[in-house]
């Protein structure tokens, strides 16, 4: 490792992973070079319509991050660029990138689109998956950053024909561009950058379905891929979100999804599960029903339904039981075109019992799998990284993010198929790992953002600007946006009102700034989505325009209007008008508020001394922070102490011993083992935790990593016969060569014991793989053993599919049972007999078992409730901690300064636990690296002349921020302590105490305009 470390990181690939890593690192004091192959950042997420399991609009949740990333002072973005060379070692790499010419000056281009209007060349639009056309000069999508066009040199007439001959062919764009941004003479350039670490997130491409002829893709027009279907659903798609067949614009009534196209298929070297397709197919089916004007029948043809992620099972159950999505367990033979001239497709398939059927559909969607793109493979080669046989990067075992080269980390689908939360987790983990590597150089290369001087508005005439957002079709398809705009124009103080397709996009922000200047606006109102997610973004724009961030209000006409009144457009429009009016009244009475800065305690508390807690603690300590690790058990290790081997054959005992050793000897880690927490108080930057021995720990952030527990089965004679054991017990028995297992001949594994049932409607995620691993272990020791696995769906996602295949080839028998017809275990004399109904044979079979291994569920931690109260963080219905956002904030709580990792969040395997633990440490490190805690300053204030010093405010204040100055007979507010709840203001009998940003006068005036 280099001694001359550089406080900068290169991130290759600017999809959601790259953006998350970039923001984390830039926010924690490192300069980021973000390198992207295409002409805009965003990756695959902008192409998606909605995201599972929350059905959030993909663009809506991504857009604030695009904007934040795009305008971050310490993130340098290189589009159209690729890495061509690296030299050096961890801590100090020299990376050369090659930037292809864009032929458009990004600084001059305003994104107006005049060039594309005149461009005569139409080509297939890759962003829309080839449905629809774009021009040779194009912008990938409307919210793209940079908000600038780019010329496709392979398609442009001048570039392809004129340039070489020196003739002025076409060049229409040049004349159309008023900004003078187009330059056809730009040339490729090489840029050399010095960085301390590299993070790779080049993403994936989808499987080319035309290579499997029997699906008919490319020949039958009514067969599309799932990504094409996303574009059909999307408001920004080729049909503006109107769900029609691309070739005849007919609204489909019967839509089918075919799963595992290019996944779980050894014949095309894709013997892995892509992990995301089951969920996206369910989502697409549900959204199709929601989207279409006519009733839609949806059918999903699948082998195993794999929904092992957090809250995925509930989503599946809902689709099945309440939304009427039809699920058919089947094998597909072929898809052919209907001969009735309808353009429909006919699917021929066999049911589980071997019966062959055919069915006709208006549209067939192929759930295509994920595979490494060409550029991912090239990148791995350029950087000389180990790859697996599928071409994905191979990560070092039990590191979560380390590639085979020190100082180079990976996140997202580069190392295997992954969904968005896992990708974001890995991205934060990679950022944390890079930060740990370069901690001495933190802050050496970054600069601070400077805002223009704040305009004085006191005494000025109020001039309000109003922006009403369509949010694609999310608002616009229900609320009559133009009508709301016209209405807003009639209201007092409003000097301009306009509509935006996406108010949160980069170009909308730019236009907002211009309009503030043009109309001399001093109050801004945005009617769009929730202020809880988007207020900071708009406030940043105000600051950049020289306005105080609080001269602003939002009306929530999406989450609380168009989405909940989908069938009542007129009433929704009326409500949108009312909400906009109320926001205008409130904004017109807003006064500038200055932020308050408070001291930051830079120490961290980690709760839980298992693999997750120890990994988080180590990562934070390596990032340079003092860490207190609290574990209530008498020793470190957690549940992992009972494991022998990992899912990739790792020696867990050795790994754990090493981890404990490193944690115990780290100079920055203080262990509090055998101690329990008694109380927690405070907030980001200033927590105080009291242990049961009375010790008080002061810390700035906390990571909750308290693990979970193994379900103690009540079923299948567990606890009544020693031959019935859980997976962990069986693992232990195998390790100690217990006669119970070494002398046994017939093994029966029963899956989903305490999972996927009414009391616990979630999948425990790890048990299918664990059973397969244990079964293989048994079979390896005793090849003549009879091994049965009784399952509902085999959920061996990702590369675990290979183990599943190996198990079947080794003669392990897999018998499916259904939820309503569970296996029965009886004791006949001394013999254990398992009875299960076989779906293929359609009759019950009896197995005499020597060992019955139960895949006992992973349950939520028992201390969850206590910690939930102390840290004021939520739990979900099953008792697992609930993150701030399921997709994009998978380790954050909505309470600032508190993070989570490991099983306490949801069941997952050890590799995933480690990745999440590093992510939590990465995110916690971002918070700790701030010099001070900034709070908005929305605190209480006292009108001394009205105050009678009665002390009511002091009595109701739970933050102990208000006290009565007995000498001057007046209440005084401590801004650092005041949390801004306003209980004092509503309790004051004299109206002397009030709350900034939410004054009595504002609310009363809103009610006067009710």
């Amino acid at each position, binding site marked *: 490792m280099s001694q001359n470390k550089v406080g900068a990181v290169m991130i290759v690939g600017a999809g959601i992973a790259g953006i998350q890593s970039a923001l984390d690192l830039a926010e924690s004091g490192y300069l980021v070079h973000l390198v992207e192959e295409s002409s805009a950042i965003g990756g695959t997420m902008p192409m998606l319509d909605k995201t599972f399991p929350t059905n959030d609009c993909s663009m809506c949740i991504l857009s604030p991050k695009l904007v934040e990333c795009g305008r971050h002072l310490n993130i340098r973005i290189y589009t159209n660029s690729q890495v061509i060379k690296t030299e050096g070692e961890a801590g100090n790499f020299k990376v050369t990138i090659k930037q292809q010419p864009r032929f458009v000056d990004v600084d001059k281009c305003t994104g107006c689109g005049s060039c594309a209007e005149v461009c005569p060349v139409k080509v297939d639009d890759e962003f829309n998956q080839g449905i629809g056309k774009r021009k040779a000069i194009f912008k990938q999508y409307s919210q793209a950053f940079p908000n600038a066009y780019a010329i496709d040199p392979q398609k442009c007439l001048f570039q392809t024909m004129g340039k070489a001959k020196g003739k002025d062919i076409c060049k229409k764009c040049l004349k159309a561009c008023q900004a003078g941004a187009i330059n056809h003479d730009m040339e490729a350039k090489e840029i050399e950058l010095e960085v301390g670490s590299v993070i790779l997130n080049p993403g994936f491409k989808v499987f080319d379905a035309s290579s499997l002829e029997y699906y008919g893709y490319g020949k039958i027009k009514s067969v599309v891929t799932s990504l094409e279907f996303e574009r059909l659903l999307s408001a920004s798609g080729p049909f503006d979100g109107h769900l029609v067949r691309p070739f005849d614009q007919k609204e489909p009534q019967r839509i089918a999804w075919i799963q595992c196209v290019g996944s779980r298929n050894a014949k095309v070297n894709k013997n892995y599960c892509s992990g995301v397709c089951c969920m996206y197919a369910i989502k697409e089916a549900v959204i199709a029903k929601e989207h279409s004007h006519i009733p839609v029948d949806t059918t999903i043809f699948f082998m195993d339904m794999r929904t092992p992620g957090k809250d995925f099972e*509930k989503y599946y159950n809902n689709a099945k039981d309440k939304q009427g999505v039809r699920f058919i367990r089947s094998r597909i033979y072929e898809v052919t075109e209907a001969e009735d001239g309808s353009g429909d497709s006919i699917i021929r398939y066999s049911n589980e019992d071997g019966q062959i059927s055919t069915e006709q559909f208006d549209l067939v969607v192929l759930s295509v799998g994920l595979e490494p793109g060409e550029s991912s493979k090239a990148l791995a080669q350029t950087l000389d990284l180990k790859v697996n046989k599928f071409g994905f990067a191979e990560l070092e075992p039990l590191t979560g993010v380390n590639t085979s080269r020190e100082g180079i980390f990976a996140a997202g689908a580069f190392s295997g198929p992954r969904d968005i939360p896992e990708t974001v987790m890995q991205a934060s983990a990679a950022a944390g790992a890079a930060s740990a590597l370069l901690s001495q150089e933190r802050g050496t290369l970054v600069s601070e953002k400077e805002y223009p001087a704040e305009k004085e508005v006191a005494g000025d005439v109020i001039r309000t600007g109003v922006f009403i957002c369509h949010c694609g079709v999310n608002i616009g398809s229900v609320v009559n946006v133009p009508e709301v705009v016209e209405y807003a124009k009639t209201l007092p103080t409003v000097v301009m009102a306009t509509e935006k397709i996406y108010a949160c996009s980069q170009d909308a922000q730019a236009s907002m700034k211009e309009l503030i200047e043009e109309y001399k606006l001093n109050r801004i109102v945005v009617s769009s989505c929730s202020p*809880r997610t988007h207020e900071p973004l708009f406030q940043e724009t105000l600051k950049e325009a020289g306005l105080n961030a609080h001269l602003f209000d939002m009306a929530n006409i999406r989450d609380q209007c168009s989405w909940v009144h989908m*069938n009542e457009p007129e009433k929704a429009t009326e409500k949108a008008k009312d909400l906009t009016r109320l926001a205008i009244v409130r904004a017109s009475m807003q006064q500038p508020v200055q932020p308050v800065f408070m001291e930051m305690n830079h120490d961290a508390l980690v709760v839980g001394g298992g693999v997750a807690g120890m990994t988080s603690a180590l990562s934070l300590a390596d990032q340079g922070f003092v860490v207190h690790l609290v574990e209530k058990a008498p020793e470190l290790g957690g549940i992992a102490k009972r494991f022998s081997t990992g899912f990739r054959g790792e020696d867990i005992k050795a790994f754990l011993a090493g981890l404990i050793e490193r944690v115990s000897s780290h100079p920055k880690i203080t262990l509090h083992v055998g101690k329990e927490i008694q109380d927690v108080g405070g907030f980001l930057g200033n927590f105080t935790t009291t242990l049961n021995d009375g010790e008080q720990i002061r810390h700035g952030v906390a990571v909750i990593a308290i693990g979970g527990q193994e379900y103690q089965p009540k079923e299948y004679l567990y606890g009544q016969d020693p031959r019935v054991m859980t997976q962990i017990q069986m693992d232990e028995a195998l390790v100690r060569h217990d006669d119970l297992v070494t002398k046994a001949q017939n093994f029966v594994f029963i899956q989903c014991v305490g999972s996927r049932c009414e009391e616990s409607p979630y999948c425990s995620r790890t048990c299918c793989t664990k059973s397969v691993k244990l079964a293989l272990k048994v079979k390896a020791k005793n090849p003549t053993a009879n091994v049965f696995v009784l399952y509902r769906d085999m959920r061996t996602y990702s590369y675990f599919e290979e183990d599943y295949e190996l198990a079947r080839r080794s003669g392990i028998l897999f018998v499916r049972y259904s939820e309503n017809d569970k296996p029965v275990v009886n004791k006949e004399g001394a013999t254990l007999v398992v009875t299960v109904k076989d779906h293929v044979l359609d009759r019950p079979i009896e197995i005499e078992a020597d060992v019955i291994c139960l895949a006992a569920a992973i349950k939520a931690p028992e201390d969850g409730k206590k910690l939930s109260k102390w840290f004021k963080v939520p739990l979900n219905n099953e008792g697992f901690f609930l993150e701030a956002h399921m997709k994009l904030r998978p380790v954050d709580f909505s309470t600032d300064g508190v993070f989570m990792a490991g099983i306490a969040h949801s069941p997952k395997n050890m590799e995933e636990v480690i990745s999440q633990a590093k992510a939590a440490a990465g995110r916690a490190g971002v918070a700790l690296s701030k010099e001070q805690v900034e709070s908005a300053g929305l605190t209480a204030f006292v009108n001394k002349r009205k105050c009678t010093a009665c002390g009511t405010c002091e009595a109701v204040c739970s933050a102990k921020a208000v006290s009565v100055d007995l000498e001057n007979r007046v209440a005084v507010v401590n801004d650092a302590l005041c949390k801004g*709840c306003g209980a004092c203001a509503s309790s004051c009998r004299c109206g002397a105490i009030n709350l900034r940003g939410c004054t009595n006068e504002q609310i009363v005036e809103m009610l006067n305009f009710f």
Partner: protein
Amino acid sequence: MFMEDRQVNVSDTDNKAYQPKIAAFLCNWCSYAGADLAGVSRFQYPATIRTIRVPCSGRINPLYLLKAMANGADGVLVSGCHPGDCHYISGNYVARRKFALIKSLLKHVGLEEDRVSFSWVSAAEGVRFSEVVKGVTERVAALGPNNSVFKVKDGGGTDE
């Protein structure tokens, strides 16, 4: 948590000619977030409420309820975090004390009790939020338009 109990058809109140207008004071951390979750999950409810976001239910001055009524609201909904879950530790208890008093005051002056509702909705309770709005709407709709002692033509003037 997400999609269960989704109702595509809005409750039957929307078929009646009269639809009340209800002022909804929602605390930022629980109930407003719960309302957002109802939106994300597409739980449909009647378009009767007009939300006023406040940091905490403890912020709500009893005066606001009277002002809302005076300005033509047919009902008022106040919703905060569940007892014990307040982001500000005890603001919702402050609110609870106040509302116990204001409720008895409103009853005393002859206002129908059902015009004013209090509820607890957490950030994770999208379904509950839509149920609460449905319930409040039905109760207020049953009472008909607000012609009470409080409704004043000009809203009774401004405070201060």
